[in-house]
């Protein structure tokens, strides 16, 4: 069993992450240097973890949604809403824990809303979540009344920029969340049911799986994760920016999930690999920054990566590299 999980580590995503890090090291020899300063670690590697945390958290929520053959475009906007809620509440004098809980509840409700549109009203996920993607920023602006709400609350700032055992708080939160969600989906039957619904919803329903409850759950989780990411980003800049917080991050999150090996057609998924996918994206971003290339390269490199991943997942590639397990018998005619 242990041997098996060690072998599992040698998967393409981790190799890709190591590859990107090595390229960064070639371009920038100090890339792996980590120093201890003011009670915390510093260095490019730590930076990857810290900067990558919001997208990694989004990816943890997004992977379940995509496994059910859905997609959640609203996570960036939900980040802005959650950030706005937390910031305005602490500014209005509420204690930080209450503000944080309120922001998380709002994120959960946003996710639930998406879930209701998809599961109960049977709206296509891309359209259903597009509603909140557009409306979310408006809601966030209404909450902040159009201003960037800045705050000095130490707890919120700690969530965004603090450190825990020397590691950045954001990265610690992302890692803990990833582990909790992985345990929840894999130690219960939820993971299997998500995959079953993603592969064949009609068959899942006939096999007695409550697919509606399951969809409500995955979209709610995605909303909750977006809220966590939103609070971190707000804490990081010490303010809630309704227009720019989480802007376009839904696309990075989707990319992270796809790099993590989950097909947009639903089915098999892995939470840890989606997390690794997010780190790969951030490692590229950081690498381009520290190696002195103009940041414009970032977008082109990212596009190139998406292209490669999609080609690998395309039907053409699977024809060129047939599955290792041979079918025992020919499929029956027709």
């Amino acid at each position, binding site marked *: 069993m242990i041997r098996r999980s060690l072998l599992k580590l040698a998967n393409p995503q981790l190799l890709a992450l190591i590859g990107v890090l090595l390229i960064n090291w070639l371009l920038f020899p100090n890339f792996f240097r980590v120093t201890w300063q003011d009670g915390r670690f510093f260095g490019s590697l730590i930076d990857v973890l810290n900067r990558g945390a919001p997208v990694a958290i989004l990816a943890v929520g997004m992977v379940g949604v995509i496994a059910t053959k859905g997609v959640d475009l609203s996570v960036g906007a939900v980040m802005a809403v959650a950030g706005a809620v937390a910031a305005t509440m602490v500014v209005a004098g509420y204690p930080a824990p209450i503000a944080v809980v309120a922001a998380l509840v709002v994120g959960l409700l946003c996710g639930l809303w998406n879930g209701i549109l998809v599961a109960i009203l049977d709206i296509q996920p891309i359209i259903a979540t597009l509603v909140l993607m557009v409306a979310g920023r408006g809601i966030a602006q209404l909450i902040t009344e159009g201003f960037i709400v800045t705050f000095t609350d130490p707890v919120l700032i700690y969530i965004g920029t603090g450190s825990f055992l020397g590691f950045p708080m954001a990265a610690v939160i992302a890692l803990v969340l990833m582990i909790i969600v992985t345990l929840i989906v894999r*130690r*219960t*039957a*939820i993971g*299997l*049911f998500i*995959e*079953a619904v993603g*592969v*064949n919803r*009609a*068959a*899942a*329903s*006939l*096999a*007695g*799986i*409550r697919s509606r409850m399951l969809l409500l759950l995955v979209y709610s989780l995605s909303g909750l994760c977006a809220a966590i990411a939103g609070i971190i980003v707000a804490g990081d800049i010490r303010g809630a920016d309704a227009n720019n917080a989480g802007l376009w991050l839904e696309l990075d999150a989707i990319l992270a999930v796809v790099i993590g090996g989950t097909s947009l057609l639903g*089915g*098999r998924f892995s939470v840890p690999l989606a997390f690794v996918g997010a780190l790969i994206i951030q490692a590229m971003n950081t690498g381009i920054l520290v190696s002195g290339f103009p940041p414009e390269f970032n977008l082109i490199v990212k596009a190139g990566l998406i292209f490669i991943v999609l080609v690998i997942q395309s039907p053409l590639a699977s024809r060129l590299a047939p*599955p290792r*397990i*041979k*079918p*025992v*018998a*020919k*499929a*029956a*005619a*027709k």
Partner: protein
Amino acid sequence: MTDGQYALEARGIVKIFGNHVALDKVDFGLRPGEVHALLGENGAGKSTLIKILTGAYQPTLGDVIVDGSPVTLNNPQHAQTHGIGTVYQEVNLLPNRSVAENLYLGHQPTWFGFVDRRKMERDARTVLARYGLNIDPSSELGAHSVAVQQIVAIARAVELSGKVLILDEPTASLDRNEVERLFDIIRDLKAQGLAVVFITHFLDQVFAIADRVTILRNGKLIDTKSLDNLTRTDVVRLMLGKDIAFSGATQLEENRPLGEVLLDFKGYGKKRSVMPFNLTIHKGEVVGVAGLLGSGRTEMARIMFGADSADEGTVSVAGKPTSISKPTDAIAHGFGFCPEDRKAEGIFGDLSVRENIVIALQGKLGWFSALTRDEQMEIAGRYGESMDIRAASLDMPIKLLSGGNQQKAILSRWLATDPTFLILDEPTRGIDVGAHAEIVRTINRLRDEGLALVVISSELDEVVAYSSRIVVMRDRELVAELNGENINPGVIVQAIANHKDGVQT
């Protein structure tokens, strides 16, 4: 030569897909001024033949002959220029364009290169009037009923081709009055000398409108006959391949005492799907369901399992009234259901054989009492062995297995839930002989273990072999319940064909 009299003829058509022979030397001749019904169960080769006649497929061997000369039809548009038009079950026009545009799409009358809308609508009005339709040609097609759309589709096909009209299940979504209206139009066209091919599952309609009938079975031509000399029983017998000599020749189960009543459906039905039926099912019996495709057998299975919810009638399980409106209700009562369309509704193609087997049991256990991997392996291994599932590994995706092994896995999925009642819809369709035997063996074993089973099958020999009782479905209605000596293919064929007095023409 009699050939000259055919408007459209197919001679010695062979069509092979991969190594599957879809049509084996089929001859088909269509006379001008006749309505010719094309009959056969699923997989008989009807649609392949139609696609060859309309140029959608090319025959592997054989000729298509139009007006006495062989032609090569490259595609349906090309067939149209030879006078062959087709109307499909699903109207494939553009619902958001006007009636006139739909009639003339691609052939609009033009005026210096511009569409002459006024002329188009004027022409459309005259054409539609010939079909008894008095509707505004500039109105949107989608605003009209399916029947009207169907008639517009026919008008378009006749206008564009004008010699042969192929109607592929045109009445499937029409009510009785609409069918009558359609038939009036077909009779008119026939009087004008058009040759019409009519495909349907409703035998009554065949006898109401058709002059001759061609029956296909398993890709082979069984016969082409004039309907004047045929009874419904003859037609069903030809479709299902039952000879008179065969009836009564089956071994009957000795009358075993019935177990306790497990299920009692009273007046159970769903509008536009299955007419209300009464059915009592005992422990330890197999109730066979016979009927042609489209007779409502699958719909009956689906409302019994709650896959569609019944809108009238009551059901009681072990004497207690209850409601079964969704599959989870049914499963909670110990039901299981193997659907007809294995690929679309049965298997989870990308998931492993193991997961496919445990999923219903896990669904019953709920989200939080997950089976461990070892438990899953144990369960899957046990059923894999007892059902003889041939897979290199229980962890391989089930889509790589043969149809028969997939079916065994789905059966195992329900057996793992320790069911009291199983509904099997065509459990042996399209699977190899070995798996077929295994599934029939399992049905017998389960009955002996005291389960109640409802098995739907088109294979009459098979239904007869394992059923303790047989119900016959016709036109969405349960029309007969056969016991004891009456369980033989001859009686079943009679029951399927029997015309109910005076209800439908």
